[in-house]
């Protein structure tokens, strides 16, 4: 088994079974499946925490998370952010869908480094364990997901913050190894005839994401290491008393953090392109424009980081630059939105569940994009910084953008991955519950933010209670939708009809639909020729 990965020329029909199949797996589909299951667990964990946050905030003077002078609240929001980013969105979109479908879509037999792939996945397990420890050890890590010093260096002694930082180290190492694997696979293992300008847009999305990971995550790793040595070994990288600068941490963090938000959304862009093209039964409008829009989003994403720091006292010229650079990102993003609309225009549209999610994605992402353009203005951001307007903005692009991308991809590829169909009407009900639910949570937050409600505070004045109550009802509704989703998946496995190789008709033109559902354990050992 251990030799299977290196011996390209040896044909292997059987594969290990039982626990060995999973723990020692080098198969991209099995590893993808494990990523998706892992991500589902992370999602559940993170959602329960978000429900706790909304319950705390349902009424003014809430006492649910009041322990330790509200330190518990701080711990919950910190863990919620980290779980959703590192243990839900990234594992599912990149590790899950990426591992499953990048090799299939380019006609490769597997990933370039199958055993590295195994390590990438299994690094996440100790990482999640450490993050869980950071919640329960001592009074927990309550630094926010951005863990700025001095709060994270001298402000919160005790092991919890260290556990959180080491957890992120492991998750980061996993991401970097995964990124190397994806890039090598996409550059070197495409089927003959499949030029870079023919690979599906989902593959482009993963490729750009992998480059962002490769260049951004080491910066996070470096910043975390400096923070750990500041905490434990008396260095003063971020400590003014020793000549360091806490602002340097924010620069480093956001040099990673801003590409990170594109890391979360670019694979979703890819999924949406596949889904829209499939259900419009047309090729994507402006394929090259779409691909290079993602590339330019990735490139520009590296030079806009300080728009997260408009309020730290940068001088006005620096703020002006970061405002302008940030606004430029709206151009390639706009290209993508208009191209999706142009793909649908005149298409033979049907609205199966994945398509509903894709259209929902486009609508909600535009709303999040508009508030993003608002916040990109340094002058406006001074007054909106750290208010619920920002919370509304990034949940519209992530909680609805990335999440809807995940659901679109899940419903789209579920028949391929499992060989079972989910009844359309069941998925559609789930879509409407989720769509209404998330809007009820997050739309009122715009009003709260404009009215001046600060984020990361466990209580608020009476004046904000109305919209907060409504947001909390939305959270309950969305959570009910999530439970219903679990039932749908169970139903699909148990009673779902058998899926044909291509359940979506002539619009589904990528290579994975030429294989049976589910695909055999080994695929494309003889690579197909692409005309």
């Amino acid at each position, binding site marked *: 088994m251990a030799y299977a990965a290196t011996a*390209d020329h040896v044909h292997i029909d059987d594969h290990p079974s039982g626990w060995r199949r999973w723990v020692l797996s080098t198969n991209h589909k099995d590893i993808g499946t494990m990523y998706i299951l892992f991500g589902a667990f992370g999602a559940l964990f993170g959602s329960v925490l978000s429900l706790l946050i909304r319950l705390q905030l349902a009424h003014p003077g809430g006492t649910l998370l009041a322990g330790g002078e509200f*330190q518990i609240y701080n711990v919950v929001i910190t863990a919620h952010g980290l779980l959703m980013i590192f243990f839900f969105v990234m594992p599912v979109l990149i590790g899950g869908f990426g591992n499953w479908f990048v090799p299939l879509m380019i006609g490769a037999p597997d990933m*370039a*480094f199958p055993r590295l792939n195994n390590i990438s996945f299994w690094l996440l397990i100790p990482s999640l364990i450490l993050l869980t420890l950071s919640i329960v050890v001592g009074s927990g890590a309550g630094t926010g997901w951005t863990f700025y010093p001095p709060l994270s260096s*001298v*402000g*919160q*002694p005790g092991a919890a913050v260290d556990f959180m930082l080491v957890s992120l180290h492991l998750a980061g190492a996993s991401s*970097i190894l995964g*990124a*190397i694997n994806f*890039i*090598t696979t996409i*550059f*070197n*293992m495409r089927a003959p005839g499949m030029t870079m300008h023919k690979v599906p847009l989902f593959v482009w999305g993963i490729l750009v994401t992998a480059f962002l990971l*490769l*260049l*951004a*995550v*080491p*910066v996070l*790793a*470096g*910043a975390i*290491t*400096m923070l750990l040595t500041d905490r434990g070994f*008396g260095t003063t*990288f971020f400590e*003014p*008393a*020793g*000549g*360091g*600068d806490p*602002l*340097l941490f924010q*620069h*480093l963090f956001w040099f990673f953090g801003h590409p990170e938000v594109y890391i979360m959304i670019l694979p979703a862009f890819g999924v949406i392109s596949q889904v829209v093209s499939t259900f419009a039964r047309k090729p994507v409008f402006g394929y090259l424009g779409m691909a290079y829009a993602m590339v330019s989003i990735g490139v520009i994403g590296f030079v806009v980081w300080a728009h997260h720091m408009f309020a730290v*006292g*940068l*001088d006005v010229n620096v703020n002006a630059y970061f405002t302008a650079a940030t606004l430029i990102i709206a151009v390639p993003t706009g290209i993508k939105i208009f191209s999706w609309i142009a793909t649908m225009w005149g298409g033979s549209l049907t609205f199966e569940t994945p398509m509903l999610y894709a259209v929902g994605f486009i609508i909600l992402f535009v709303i999040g994009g508009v508030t993003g353009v608002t916040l990109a203005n340094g002058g406006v951001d001074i007054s909106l910084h750290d208010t619920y307007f920002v919370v509304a903005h990034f949940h519209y692009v992530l909680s609805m953008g990335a999440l809807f991308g995940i659901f679109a991809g899940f419903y789209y590829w579920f028949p391929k991955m499992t060989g079972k169909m989910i009844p359309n009407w069941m998925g559609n009900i789930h879509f409407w519950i989720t769509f209404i639910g998330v809007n009820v949570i997050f739309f009122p937050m715009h009003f709260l933010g404009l009215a001046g409600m600060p984020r990361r505070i466990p209580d608020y004045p009476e004046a904000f209670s109305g919209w907060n109550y409504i947001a909390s009802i939305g959270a309950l509704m969305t959570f009910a939708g999530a439970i219903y989703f679990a039932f749908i998946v169970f139903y699909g496995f148990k009673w779902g009809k058998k899926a044909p190789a291509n359940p979506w008709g002539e619009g589904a033109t990528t290579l994975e639909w030429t294989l049976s559902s589910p695909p055999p354990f080994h695929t494309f050992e003889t690579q197909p020729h692409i005309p």
Partner: protein
Amino acid sequence: MKEKRRSTLIILLSLAFGMLALTFASSALFRLFCEKTGHGGTTQVARKMPTRVEDRVITVRFNADTQRNLPWEFKPLQKQITVKAGEVGLAYYHGINKSQTPTVGMATYNVTPHKAGIYFNKVECFCFLEQHLEAGQETDFPVQFFIDPAIVEDPTMDEVDTITLSYTFFPLAKGTNLKW
């Protein structure tokens, strides 16, 4: 095929490690950048005394802060002084260690408006060194400075007639207990 994969792997790994190395270098690079450009109001260390004095009069105001874990009282002895561009000014701060133990402090500094940092030169400053105060000791901290006469040639500095010099003293010893 395997060759190609290996060379891709090597390129990608060196990219990742290159970024990691840059990150560790960033601490020094960031300081260097601030010192060279005056970014964030970083003041300059004078290498030679000014050779001319311009007619431009600038008010220099003084600000003092102390981090709460340092048991010092620290304040400027004069609220402000006026100097001509190119003229050397001298100001004093006063520090008292109000605790029963000797403590060591180090001051951080900058000027506002930030764009004045590049023109603000310090000849001698207590902030260049660690400051040691015995229990109950009082002392005067001098700072000798001048404003680069080249300020008159910079049109973006035309409206600047006041520069605020600010210091914050931090305790140097680690392990001060913070309650949260």
